């Protein structure tokens, strides 16, 4: 584009017709307009805030929030500051999104494979599962799960005991689960697990290297499992099983002790998992279908065993098509977890952008903080995606 050399005759015409000067001119104009727009917005905001007597600045973060949060794993009290509320919101959002991502991906793989099943009935059911879930709004599904399933649970006295366990109960206050209470020497078990994982990675790397050099395949499945499960168990038993379970028990009108999860959280989680699993299923299906049949046949004609054809030829190529859209789906799960506000689960948007904003009135600062969090998450995720894309592009040729 910039190949137009300025004509030697010079003059105003030459400058007007030169693409480089014109492009600089346009950029200056656009930049000027942008700056003008930003400045006038800031000015308007300042005037408006002054007339409404709204304070500016992030000092309010130190003020006492003064409201309770229905559920948080952190040690939060109403006397804590707004900054603490921000953290509570972030942690709640991340927990909700994290669990949903894992389960949705898992369920998506199952449904995606079922959709490709040779069994006509199963394939039909799976495809209708996907169609119904993708064609109704997520918000409607969240409300549906909440009102249809989790708001109708029995009172604590008539709790449902899951699988017959007395300490794993579901009632209209939530899901009560035993809570692990690590004791003094439990850290040794954790260290043992870490060491075991490192050893297993080294073992697998060594086997892969050996296969590269000699072509001989060494199965590492059994030793890997043995180390990863064996070493921590040995450490656990040797240190005298330093783990107690705090069991929830019915006291008065409610359960006390143990861990608990709000019904609203269960509803949002189920809705997020089910909704996104439909999208994940489509990605998995498309990914597997994108590997041409010739690949299977070529691998078989080389004499690879059927399990190797799947593991070494089909899945790696399918993953290349599955992973990038799957990662953007995970980003969507994080963003969509903000819909939890509709049924009152205290996620970041609910506790910070609604309750805190209504109480403190610091609209600009709070909106900026919330957006900063979501942008950080998505930029981190897309950075990971770029790294992955670079990696698979290198192996391409």
């Amino acid at each position: 584009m910039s190949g137009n050399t300025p004509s030697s005759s010079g003059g105003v015409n030459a400058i007007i017709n030169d693409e480089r000067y014109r492009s600089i001119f346009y950029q200056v104009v656009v930049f000027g307009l942008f700056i003008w727009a930003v400045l006038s917005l800031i000015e308007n905001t300042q005037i408006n805030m002054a007339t409404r007597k709204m304070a500016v600045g992030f000092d309010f973060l130190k003020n006492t929030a003064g409201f309770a949060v229905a559920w948080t794993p952190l040690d939060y009290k109403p006397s804590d500051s707004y900054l603490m509320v921000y953290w509570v919101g972030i942690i709640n959002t991340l927990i909700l999104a994290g669990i949903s991502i894992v389960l949705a991906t898992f369920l998506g793989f199952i449904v995606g494979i079922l959709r490709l099943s040779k069994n006509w009935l199963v394939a039909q059911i799976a495809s209708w599962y996907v169609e119904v879930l993708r064609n109704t709004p997520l918000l409607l599904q969240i409300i549906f799960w909440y009102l249809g399933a989790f708001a109708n649970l029995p009172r604590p006295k008539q709790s449902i005991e899951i699988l017959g366990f007395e300490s794993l109960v579901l009632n209209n206050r939530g899901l009560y689960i035993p809570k692990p209470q690590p004791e003094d020497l439990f850290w040794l078990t954790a260290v043992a697990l870490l060491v075991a994982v490192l050893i297993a990675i080294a073992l697998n790397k060594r086997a892969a290297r050996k296969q590269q050099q000699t072509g001989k395949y060494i199965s590492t499945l059994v030793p890997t499992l043995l180390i990863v499960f064996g070493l921590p168990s040995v450490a656990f038993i040797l240190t005298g099983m330093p783990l107690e379970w705090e069991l929830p028990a019915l006291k008065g009108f409610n359960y006390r002790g143990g861990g608990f999860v709000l019904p609203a959280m269960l509803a949002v989680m189920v809705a997020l998992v089910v909704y996104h699993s439909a999208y994940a299923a489509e990605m998995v299906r498309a990914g597997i279908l994108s590997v041409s049949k010739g690949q299977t046949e070529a691998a078989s004609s080389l004499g690879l065993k059927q399990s190797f054809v799947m593991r070494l030829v089909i899945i790696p190529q399918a993953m290349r098509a599955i992973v990038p859209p799957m990662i953007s789906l995970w980003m969507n799960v994080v963003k969509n977890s903000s819909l939890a506000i509709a049924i009152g689960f205290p996620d970041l948007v609910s506790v910070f952008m609604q309750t805190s904003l209504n109480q403190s009135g610091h609209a600009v600062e709070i909106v900026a903080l919330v957006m900063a969090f979501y942008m950080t998450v998505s930029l981190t995720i897309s950075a990971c995606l770029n790294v992955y894309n670079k990696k698979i592009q290198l192996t391409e040729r």
Partner: protein
Amino acid sequence: MTEITEQNEVSEKFVPKPSLPPPPNTTGAIGWLRYNLFDGFLSSCLTVLSLIAIGFMCVNFYEWAFAKAVLEAANRQECRITPTEFGTCWAGVKFWFTRFIYGRYTDTEIWRVNSAAIILILWMIPVWLPRVTAKLNIALSGVLIFPFLAGYMFLGGDRNWFMEIMVSVALGCFLTAIIHSLLCLFTGAGISKWIIQLTGFSNRSERLHKFPVIVFAVIIFLLSLFLISDVTFKEMPNNLWGGLFLTLVISGIGIASALPAGILLALGRRSKMTVIRVLCVAFIELFRSVPLITILFMATTMFPLFLPEGFHINKLASAIVAVCLFAAAYMAEVVRGGLQAIPKGQYEAAEAVGLTYWQSMGFIVMPQALKYMIPNIVSNFMGLFKDTTLVSIIGLYDLLGMINAVSQDPSWIGLHHEPLFTAAVIFFIGCFAMSKYSQYLERNLGAGNGR
């Protein structure tokens, strides 16, 4: 010799035996069942399990939707089938159904919403008719000018001079589009040719042909100005709008503004001018990386602060602006995908024949890219249609907002499931139709470069 050869020929002549019929259990219904449902032990197990699951769901659904149905009731209490148990209160859905579609719009004025919808449909039908010419003009006028007419029909009240002109222009465009399409269907020639022939200008030189067309346009404009001059509608402030109607208004405006904005943003993102590219990338990434609900909250809390003194923005307008910004950022990525699918040779060829940037984009690149984009645009619209439900969180009464309102009405308190089911069915029908249409487009538009 001759005898022998003849004998040989006879003996060598190959007479095939009639082929055996396929084994009885591989064809027909039994064969299909064997192959598709009972192909091995695992498959049979899955089939049986699926049948049990389907049967269980059907029985439960039948019990809920039909066996326990209460069709006539004046309030929720009358929906009890036993003193302790509520039936499935379809009477409530029937009672509220008009509200689900139109919100709190006054009953006597609902015809305005309906006729605006009919006008839009009539305006857009010609785009799908193969014999009609100038489809792009019809579609563009529908998208750009119809909103003024619809806006007035929905809102009503007094018109200022601007609205007076825009509404009559819109009405004129509508009439022209209809006359043009009918002429195309019956005579095969468009409206301008017809006017030229009618006024006898077809013998004159081509340069003069535009004058009768201009005169016709002015006449149509004046005619519609005259038609609407006495018509004023009752004012229906937009806090009365609601239901599916509001959902469609918000998502319709969102998608109509997202397309041009998305094209500009995508071109900006691929531009060689650094300032423009950085600004576009920042806008796209900002709005794509935050959830829509935060943008809506930002709109309701911060837009009033952004405006100069003396200006007020109501909740619906801020929500619409927020949805437009959000949709534009997503549409920009769709357009970028389409642009990237065009081979570089096309850009270079357009430049080589001396087209300017806008010419090469408008005549060479965009028409081709649009073909790749249409399925994605349709699914984007589907997504926006679903995402519009979020405006119920900031307190607008869209379809989902109306449904939540029902369960808070004193005489229908606690009526959740039936309205939710109704809304789900409405959304499913809309989105399913759109997704099937986008799949159909994907198949048909790809016909040219299929393998």
